[in-house]
């Protein structure tokens, strides 16, 4: 996972969304406008999330890591969003919902990249201090700063 996949312009803090579809619709508009994804992205991410949900029951707040196949991505990115909680299905179980506060949309090209990125992210999600700091960050700039010092990030 590289630092250059993190963009401050993609950070959203305390975003309100009625449900995950609403969340994806709002984020897709932005990602499309800024040139990160193709038109096909919205349908693709909604479909994939419905089939293979991505919320991880991290404590105290669940984290979701939605993604699509690489063909819908133009420029690789990670979109870090802090929500005002949205109900989200657990990765291993379509019938278990969690209140998700943190989302990292993963816009990735290759599968090696994906594995490396997941490894870095899940290790950091277990860092209680980092998650607390992310929750308390007031500005996108502060949020970005915290993400840039995550353990295991490359160049």
């Amino acid at each position: 996972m590289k630092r250059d996949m993190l963009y401050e312009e993609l950070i959203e803090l305390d975003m309100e969304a009625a449900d995950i579809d609403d969340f994806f619709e709002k984020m897709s508009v932005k990602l499309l406008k800024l040139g990160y994804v193709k038109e096909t992205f919205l349908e693709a991410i909604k479909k994939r999330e419905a089939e293979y949900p991505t919320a991880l029951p991290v404590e105290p707040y669940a984290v979701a890591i939605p993604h699509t196949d690489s063909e819908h991505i133009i420029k690789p990115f990670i979109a870090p969003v802090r929500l005002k909680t949205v109900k989200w299905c657990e990765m291993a179980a379509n019938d278990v919902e969690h209140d998700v506060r943190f989302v990292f949309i993963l816009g990735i090209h290759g599968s090696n990249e994906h594995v490396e990125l997941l490894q870095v992210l899940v290790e950091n999600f277990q860092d209680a201090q980092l998650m607390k700091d992310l929750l308390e960050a007031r500005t996108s700039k502060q949020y970005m700063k915290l993400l840039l010092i995550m353990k295991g990030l490359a160049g």
Partner: protein
Amino acid sequence: MKKIIVACGSGVATSQTVASKVNRLLKENKVDANVEVIDLKSVDRHIASSAAYIAITKTKKEYPIPVINGIAFLTGIGQDVELKKLIEACK
């Protein structure tokens, strides 16, 4: 060396992430076992030759070998319990 299998519902990224983490933990605990990422469809074929199955999708099926909760290795919650089960299964 014992074989442990791991599979996820879509793609391989999650199972590979779990596999590399578990391989590291087993090594730290000096357990002679290797975690292999397999396709969800071929779980049945690997069961007989494996000491445990780490599931990342919910499984209702009963298996003759211990089934370990793979999500625990992604969240850290309950990880110690699942690791203990895994070590036990490799004895």
